[in-house]
């Protein structure tokens, strides 16, 4: 890949401020996304994947704040930009869709207007023009009868339709990056399949990069070219998606891949006892010392309990943060 990456995050830290004390919820996170690339961020709830995305688009709200590190978009440091310039990026060049399409849309505003806002905000269109463009945008996300649907309110649409509207909003201004935070978790599998395909096709058509965030490693691996796995506020492994599934390197990733019953596995291998990851996910306020996975890791040694591992390059490409990586 030539030229600067679209997104370049270096050593990002996000603090949870609690009165005067601060707890890092995310620490030492670095990754890059190139133009048109699909990148996945996988992790369990509370691992920091969503707030990393929010930091990226500048939407962290108190008590969370960026505590350190650099976020570059298209070569420019986002945090250094004035507020207006940041806003001009948001929605226009970096767009985001959220998990719950019911609550992510304003319940008392017609969906057409919520799409049209984008054209008014970023393209300087009049409301009349914007409304026309909104119809087209809805058509692009394959909503039937878009000219009627623009007048509908979110509650009049099904979950899948709402998520299409969200995609229409996000892609309205042809952004360079689409952040999709658990875009299909609230949907049924068949609808999920449709939405994923729609997202994938539309982004591929216009070269929009995707940062997909999910707890579902299978889904992310299916959608994205590269995947980063987060655990307890840190990226523990970053690989090509096929690699991470075939030869997971970090013990946590290994555990994830092995612990879940996957379709067809019983037919192929018979019903075996699932591999368990022992213990519980730590809370933000009680991350363990050393490697944050060490209390749950079967391979943990003293060094794991004492020192936090640095990321190391894997021979097959990719990064891992483990003292004992395979």
């Amino acid at each position, binding site marked *: 890949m030539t030229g600067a990456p679209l997104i370049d995050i270096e050593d990002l830290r996000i603090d949870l401020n609690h009165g005067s004390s601060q707890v890092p919820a995310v620490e030492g996170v670095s990754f890059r996304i190139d133009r048109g690339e699909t990148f996945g961020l996988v992790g369990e709830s509370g691992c920091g994947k969503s707030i990393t995305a929010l930091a990226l688009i500048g939407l962290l709200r108190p008590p969370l704040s960026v505590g350190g590190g650099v976020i570059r978009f298209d070569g420019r440091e986002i945090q250094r930009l004035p507020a207006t310039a940041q806003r001009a990026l948001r*929605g226009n060049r970096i767009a985001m869709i959220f998990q719950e399409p019911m609550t992510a849309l304003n319940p008392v505003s017609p969906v057409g207007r919520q799409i049209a806002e*984008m054209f008014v905000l970023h393209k300087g269109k009049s409301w009349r023009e914007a409304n026309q463009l909104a119809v087209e945008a809805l058509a692009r996300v394959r909503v039937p009868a878009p000219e009627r649907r623009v007048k509908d309110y979110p509650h009049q649409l099904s979950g899948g339709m709402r998520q299409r509207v969200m995609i229409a*909003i996000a892609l309205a201004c042809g952004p360079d990056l689409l952040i999709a935070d658990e875009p299909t978790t609230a949907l049924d599998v068949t609808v999920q399949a449709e939405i994923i395909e729609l997202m994938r096709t539309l982004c591929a058509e216009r070269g929009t990069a995707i940062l997909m965030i999910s707890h579902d490693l299978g889904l992310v691996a299916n959608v994205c070219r590269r995947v980063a796995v987060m655990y307890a506020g840190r990226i523990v492994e970053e690989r090509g998606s096929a690699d991470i599934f075939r030869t997971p390197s970090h013990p946590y990733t290994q555990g994830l891949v092995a612990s879940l019953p996957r379709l067809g596995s019983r037919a192929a291998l018979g019903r075996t006892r699932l591999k368990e990851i022992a213990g519980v996910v730590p809370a933000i306020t009680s991350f363990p010392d050393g490697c944050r996975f060490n209390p749950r890791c079967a391979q943990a040694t003293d060094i794991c309990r004492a020192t936090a591992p640095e990321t190391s390059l894997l021979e097959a490409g990719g990064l891992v943060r483990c003292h004992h990586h395979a």
Partner: protein
Amino acid sequence: MLSFLIRRILQTIPTVLAVVLLVFALFSVVPGSIVSTMSDDGDPQVEARMKTQLGLDQPVYVRFGSYIANLATGDFGTSFRTREPVTTMIAKRTGPTLQLIFAAMAFAIVIGVPLGFISALRPGSIVDTAAMVVAVSGLSMAKFWLGLLLMYLFALKLGWLPSFGYGDGGLKYLILPAMTLGVSPMALLARTTRAAVLEIMTADFVRTARSKGMSETRVVKWHVTRNALVLILTTTGLQFGALMGQAVVVEKLFSWPGIGSLLVDSVLQRDIPAVQGSILVVVLFFLAVNLLIDLLYGVIDPRIRYA
């Protein structure tokens, strides 16, 4: 829409009937009767004849029945006390009461809602703290005491406003009573608005709006206000009921010729038809306001449909 209206109006009938029955039941056991306060010399014959004339010699259920029958024709009966038709009495009192209540509510909305917005947009700031201290203080004062203090300040010390009465119906007569009455809904509205805005500001769709690149003012203008209105409207609707109650005190204090003071007088003098009529009008007013609020919901919140 129309069928919704009709259905809603039909739904109020049992409530109205229950109110009538309730008041009838209450005042059929009340001690003291209008008759003894009206005939000074206490001639038992005269009293008996009076009771006959007023229908008080009939059993309660008969009176209830005939009252309902008359009510259906719009006849609220005749006041024991003034011997006027209750309809006329109430008609004269309705205007001032509505004036007072709507003025109080307008005061509450005009002051309370912006106050709530300002507080919510700067939570924890001095403005916020000050606004909420004012609001909670407004809620915590005995109404008539507050009225007296306002009267003392604005009429006597500053001389800006007349202290009492309806005067010629001019605005300056309305200000003090409306303020006194409006303080607690103002406080409640400020608090509700603040809470509503704060809550909405954390809603997912506000995050969506921000992710679109909107400035905070635009987020508030385009997405928060209308959603907050739904909650503000609910509080407003409920406050009308409380206002009707408080109006009793305020009207009496300011010699305001409204239904509230009519009601108190009628209660104290056992003028049952007038009590009955006043309470009924108050209830009908409350129901009407809430019907209106429900209709407004439909305008503001598309999720509510009149199926």
